[in-house]
């Protein structure tokens, strides 16, 4: 086969696959969202979804979680990445330990933190061991929304910081070490080196890490299901509820499109804010 046709032959399976299972379902879900029962074009699905009393709450919860979780994850991942970059001995081991949560599903992460926060769980055991409480408290109840939120946020931070860490460590590895040597010669402090060299040169990786993380943050579902159940409605959980409990796939599609819209809007903002000037990459 000639080398003109060969590359197209090699990529065709991926293209066909993505057309069938990525582009086509996307068209379908848009269609479903904008069509009523009779098949006519309508916005009624969106009206139904948005006017439902749970919608503002789940939208607020999803955004609040993203706002609380993502900045902490970013700073934590930056801290870990810089720590690892100075490490000589035991670097591989430490990195392995820190990236373990990368392989753990959101459902499993939720269950892990349930072991800590449930009524007979380890947090209560610790508190009573220290003599701070007499009886185990019911931490995950509707009376303590702050604790429910904290538990979910902690589980998310615990689980999904690793993916940012990996992207940032890879990014730091691309920065030539001569820059740091030069900075040392001119007597720049470590902090100054971080602000003036690492941070600006890391911008493409920061972009990738943030886009990915923010999109995943709007998809949060199983962690919440495991820890908060119905106490803490989020958008993705509502999508699931529409599809299964209410059997309204038009409304489910409408929420799906809303999640999609929010994700795209945030992606645009991140790309814009952290844009890399042309010719300024390494």
């Amino acid at each position: 086969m000639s080398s003109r046709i060969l590359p197209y032959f090699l990529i065709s399976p991926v293209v066909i696959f993505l057309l069938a299972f990525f582009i086509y379902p996307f068209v379908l879900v848009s269609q479903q969202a904008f069509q009523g029962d009779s098949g006519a074009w309508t916005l009624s699905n969106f009206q139904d979804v948005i006017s439902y009393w749970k919608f503002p709450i789940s939208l607020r919860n999803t955004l609040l979680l993203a706002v609380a979780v993502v900045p902490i994850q970013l700073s934590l991942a930056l801290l870990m990445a810089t720590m690892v970059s100075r490490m000589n001995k035991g670097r591989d081991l430490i990195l392995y330990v820190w990236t373990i949560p990368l392989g753990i599903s959101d459902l499993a992460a939720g269950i892990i933190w349930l072991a800590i926060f449930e009524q007979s769980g380890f947090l209560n055991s610790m508190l009573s061991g220290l003599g701070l409480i007499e009886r185990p408290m019911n931490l995950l109840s509707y009376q303590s929304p702050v604790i429910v939120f904290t538990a979910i946020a902690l589980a998310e931070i615990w689980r999904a910081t690793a993916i940012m860490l990996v992207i940032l460590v890879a990014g730091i590895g691309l920065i030539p070490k001569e820059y740091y040597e030069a900075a040392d010669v001119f007597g720049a402090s470590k902090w100054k080196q971080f602000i003036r060299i690492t941070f600006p040169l890391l911008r493409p990786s920061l972009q990738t890490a943030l886009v990915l993380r923010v999109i995943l943050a709007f998809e949060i579902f199983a962690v919440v299901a495991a820890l908060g159940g119905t106490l803490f409605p989020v958008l993705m959980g509502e999508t699931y509820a529409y599809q299964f409990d209410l059997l309204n796939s038009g409304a489910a599609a409408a929420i799906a499109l809303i999640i999609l819209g929010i994700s795209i809007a945030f992606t645009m903002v991140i790309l814009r804010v952290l844009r890399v000037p042309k010719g300024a990459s390494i």
Partner: protein
Amino acid sequence: MSETSSNNGARPVGSGAKLVYVSSVVLLCAWVIVPIYFLLINTLSSPETVNSFPKSFFPEFDFGSLHFFAEFSGMITALKNSITVALLTMTMSILIGAPAGYALSRFDFVGKNLFRLLILLTRAFPLPLLALPLAVMFIQTGLDDTTFGLSLVHTTLAIPFSVLITFSLFSGIPLELEEAAWTLGCTRLSAFRKVVLPLILPGITASAIFAFVISWNEVFAAAVLTIENRTLTAFLLQNLGTSPLHLKFAGGFILVMPALIFIFAVRKYLFAMWGIANR
């Protein structure tokens, strides 16, 4: 770029700063490990202990909870389904993704950038949501509630990764090696089989393992697309409201176990998948 090297080297630091540094490393390791340890304690305790208070901070090595898990109706089937879907996903994503990775690394062709954009686009997208319309499409084609149907969706999730990983792996092998084989009488195919494939095999394995983990861990699409043939994640999710604590913890532990092994197996390649996306 399969491994990033430490770029700053060792710097002389004061002993106070060093103490802070070492203790933060230890603390961050504990932050990751201790929650998993708690889950381990609960898994290796009898159901009575799991539901009692206060908790001991050491496991009693009782297999009651795990036994309960294995005996729970439908659980073993769900576990089998999970493994089947993950194996199918693993095979398909490599067979479909690796040729594209090879094409990206070896050829310049019209539409290459468009293709790369398509790949990157899939990652900037809440993909599990697409399971909703697929549910309808699968009912029409008879793929609904089958492990194969679900593995098609999981393959869509895994393909961007397998393309990017194999692209970076193939880019790491000099074209000259292949050219030398061609001049010695190999065809493109036999040169690939005899020269490139042996070099690339460990990386391909890592990428396959990664695809396995993606499928094994996926919850939303699995819950939407299966009803009778639940995977383990979907089964656990469905029963979250009603199942006893010891069942949840044992199930969670079974979910976590492969992750620990897999991340260890692919650790060298973790950075290849993202390093390449940075440029």
